[in-house]
């Protein structure tokens, strides 16, 4: 379990980037964090695997405190982080070399590394690019390589920091579906950070951040219907919620809908 216990962090003294943050991510759980620019989302991503250490409170990964020097490396093995811009994460000159980088760091021998790379690249559909340069792939393919580079290390938890922010809508959907299908089968705990409301619908739990503070935590169905909350957090509400809310105000329907298909079905049946 990743456990944030009353965590506060400031890059500059007196200016808190995140303040009194509490939440947990269990294995097999998909937790999303949503918030606008400057809400502290990326800081949480970096705090979760010990890249940053909290000035107040503690971050625990399977009972290991990120402050403990002896567990520093083990925490990084357990928590994989994928960042927003894949171009700034590539180390290898070929896709294969890049995926192998993390395995070399954690001491995986060649034979096992080869088998793992083969498996993860075919799972993500990037096996045909293994011998090419990652620089020349499309945005979606680059992000798949970045995800593969982390998943190949077989982490227990996966932190994804706005991984679809630079992608077009089609690639975004493809990458997100892929992430869901992979983590469902691997019993990995996911901390998914985004500012795109649509992406948190399938989560088990959603945290809303605003100016470094957690302003709400709950099930996506509850959070996403609260337009006022989302607006105050600087993120857009779902079109299905906006439309159904208008229809509700006019007495045409009784409820608000998060799932647009449910709304369409209801309107068509009426």
């Amino acid at each position, binding site marked *: 379990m990743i456990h944030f216990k009353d965590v506060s962090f400031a890059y500059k003294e007196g200016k808190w980037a995140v303040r009194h943050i509490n939440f947990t991510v269990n294995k097999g759980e998909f937790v999303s964090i949503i918030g606008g620019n400057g809400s502290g989302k990326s800081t949480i991503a970096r705090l979760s695997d010990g890249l940053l250490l909290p000035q107040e409170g503690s971050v625990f990964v399977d009972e290991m405190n990120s402050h403990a020097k002896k567990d520093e490396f083990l925490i990084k093995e357990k928590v994989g982080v994928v960042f927003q811009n894949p171009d700034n994460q590539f180390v290898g000159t070929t896709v294969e070399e890049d995926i192998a980088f993390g395995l070399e760091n954690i*001491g995986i021998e060649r034979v096992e590394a080869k088998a793992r790379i083969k498996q993860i690249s075919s799972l993500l559909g990037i096996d045909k690019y293994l011998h090419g340069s990652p620089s020349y792939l499309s945005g979606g393919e680059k992000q798949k390589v970045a995800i593969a580079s982390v998943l190949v290390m077989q982490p227990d938890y996966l932190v994804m920091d706005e991984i679809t922010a630079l992608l077009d809508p089609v690639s975004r959907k493809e990458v997100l579906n892929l992430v869901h299908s992979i983590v469902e089968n691997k019993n990995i705990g996911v901390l998914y950070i985004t500012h795109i409301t649509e992406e948190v619908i399938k989560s088990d739990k959603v945290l809303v951040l605003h100016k470094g503070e957690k302003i709400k935590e709950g099930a996506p169905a509850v959070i996403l219907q609260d337009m006022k909350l989302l607006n105050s957090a600087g993120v857009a509400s779902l079109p299905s919620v906006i439309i159904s809310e208008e229809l509700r105000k006019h007495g045409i329907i009784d409820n608000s809908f998060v799932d647009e298909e449910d709304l369409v079905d209801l309107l068509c049946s009426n």
Partner: protein
Amino acid sequence: MRKRSFFGQYNFSDSLLCKLDPRVKIVLVFSIVVFLFFVKTISGYMLLLLFSIFLILLAKSKISDVFRSLAPILFLLLFTVLFQLFFTPGKVVYSFFFLNVTSEGIYLATYIAMRLMLLSFFTFVLTATTSNIELTDGFESVISPLKIVRFPTEDVALMISIAMRFVPVLFEEATRIMKAQTSRGVLFNKGSLMQRARSFLPLLLPLLLNAFNRADQLAIAMEARGFVVGKARTKYREMRIKKIDLFFIFLFILIMAASIMVKRI
């Protein structure tokens, strides 16, 4: 998917030279480049030239690409050759105003031109048949004895590898910034030398800032993937010296010996 590389001209092919151990290639090319300075006859250079052409053909490279590789040193080549040709004292064979061409000048200019050309040809063969990552691995292995004096060979090799990977990225970024600045009225190729130099500031500043930003993000991503400076890492790539490597070592020694012993003309 694959674009032309900005750095070197690695040409992924099934050529024999691509299959050689990178350490062997690095040591052989380095040895022959140093050896060029000990050859004292034109016939020796001609033999090495024929050998370099043989290697280029064996590497399945285009001759046009080889000559393109000379472009960066063309100015240096011309300047050195002309300087030697006109300013070497000796027996004058031709006069042109105040410039005298001497027989010694012709010899020296020819030697220097041959040396620079051969240096370029042999390094071309190395970069055309060895990927950046193989070069880095080979280099790391070649300098590994320095570990005895606690020189961080693995970190240096990784640093070179990352620098090589970022060369095309920075080129692309520079092109993008140039286009953006041109659209805002910056003229990169007009005006006096001073004005042109000054016009490069709007390119260099954002390029440097972006490079620092990228370096910062890369460092974070590397740390997140378990990289710790100085910590032992396993090796994914395998390097093994095979019979073909031994054959080429023998061939290089043979050619070098022959180019020294060949009759002076």
